[in-house]
């Protein structure tokens, strides 16, 4: 029993010393160390037949890096290089491509990196419908490049096993229903229902709220214009629109805020979090 106690005590000391040494040395984030490694194409050879496992290991580091910066400074300069290494090692890693590209688009607004990543995905996995669809999706909702979005939605319909959603969004773009907020909302709802992780669901949820807010404001502005034409003056509040029968109910603000009429337009007030 005494011996067991000594062993246990020594283990505790070792753990404590290791923790302190980490602090003294100021151990950097491991993910940044990945960037000092050779490119994924070379790492592939070093990993021999364990490329997937190495890719998974980098994925775990990537998630830690992402989570850490999401809660601190919201700075993600290494999103693309790390995703690039992960997908070089495991060319079929669908979630790394989609998670990486959504976050690059969302946080960095970097169209070129998104394009590079998804073009690689399409080149390495030509049979998959997900990648052209995703390219169309990101071009539509983030970069407002409706023409490119249409091309990629169309491309996704040519793939084997393409689900109805590909045809649906290709049809929207084909019939020139561009810049349509309802389509953007449908795309975000599709993303919300299809992604696996909570992080992506949160991003989708936020964009769903943003799009609903935009739809509300667009509709209210149209009604204010109508009101002014008919009544000869701008409404003072939404209640006035309600009382005079222009709206059936005051739209519920998706961020629990409220809409106010200032001059001839409606403004959205979002409470500070």
């Amino acid at each position, binding site marked *: 029993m005494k011996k067991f106690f000594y062993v246990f005590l020594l283990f505790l000391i070792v753990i404590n010393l290791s923790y302190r040494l980490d602090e003294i040395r100021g151990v950097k984030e491991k993910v940044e160390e990945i960037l000092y490694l050779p490119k994924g194409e070379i790492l592939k050879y070093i990993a021999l037949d364990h490329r997937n*496992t190495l890719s998974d290991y980098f994925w775990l580091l990537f998630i830690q890096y992402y989570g850490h910066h999401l809660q601190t400074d919201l700075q993600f300069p290494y999103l693309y290089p790390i995703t690039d290494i992960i997908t070089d090692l495991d060319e079929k890693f669908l*979630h790394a491509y989609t998670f990486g590209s959504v976050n690059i688009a969302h946080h960095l607004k970097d169209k070129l990196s998104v394009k590079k990543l998804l073009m690689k995905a399409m080149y390495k996995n030509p049979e998959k419908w997900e990648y052209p669809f995703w390219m169309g999706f990101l071009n539509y909702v983030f970069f407002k490049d409706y023409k490119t979005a249409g091309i990629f939605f169309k491309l996704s319909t040519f793939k084997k096993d393409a689900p109805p959603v590909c045809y649906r969004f290709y049809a929207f773009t084909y019939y020139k229903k561009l810049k349509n907020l309802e389509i953007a909302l449908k795309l975000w709802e599709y993303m919300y229902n299809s992604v696996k992780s909570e992080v992506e669901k949160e991003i989708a949820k936020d964009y769903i709220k943003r799009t609903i807010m935009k739809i509300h404001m667009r509709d209210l502005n149209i009604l204010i214009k109508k009101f002014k034409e008919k009544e000869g003056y701008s409404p003072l509040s939404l209640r006035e629109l309600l009382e005079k029968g222009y709206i059936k109910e005051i739209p519920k603000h998706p961020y629990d805020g409220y809409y106010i009429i200032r001059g001839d337009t409606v403004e959205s007030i979002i409470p500070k979090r």
Partner: protein
Amino acid sequence: MKGIIAIAKNTFKELVRQKIFFIIVIFGFSLLFISFFLYPLSVGEQSKIIRDFGLSAITFFNTILVIIVGGSLLHKEFDKRTIYLIVTTPVERREIIIGKFFGFLVLILINIIGMSIFHQILIFLTDGKFDLKIFIALYPFIFEISIIISILIFFSTFTGVIFSAFMGFIFYVIGHLIESLKLFSEISKSLFLKIISYFLYYFLPNLEHFNIKNNIVYGEIPKKEYFLFSTSYGLIYIILLLYISSLIFEKKEFK
């Protein structure tokens, strides 16, 4: 045939007693177990990670085990001088080679099956169902590991333990990198280099032929032709290596 079975049984019993065997097996099981606890960090990829880590643990630790233990398969008999006793019995020398091969292979197979069952339990705890497709990925791996055992036996017939183990490791690395040799031969401008590299590419064991882990993890099962050809390739390579080993061993003089 009786001689082969007797040698195989004896090899199996001897290997089971080795401590290194248990250490490596415990490491393998530990890695499998650790992968189970990684899932909160994996953001929706727990199924993939548990399959990748599990398959890697099974293949990597069994390869390490083969390389470390396999080099000494024949040399133990020389060191303990039991080889003198064996060669005086009616057992033929080629039976010693084949018996050693099967004794070791059976042990590795039991280990692979044990680790795979444990892996299936972890998959069940994560996904709520077993994934028997994983066994398909391990089928070609059995040929890969058998080729490595054959290489180790081959080198053991005329070199020392460390050199045999080293060559086993080198062939394992080359076997997985060999596809770049084909790339080299395709881009090479010198005809001589082209011929040499093409020859080496087809002559050396291409262990990537037995690596379908990535496909299986993504649910892609190769065609029947793949299994037919990879099985034939593996079997013929093993027979070739064991046959050459037997020829060398039969000529060997014991001092």
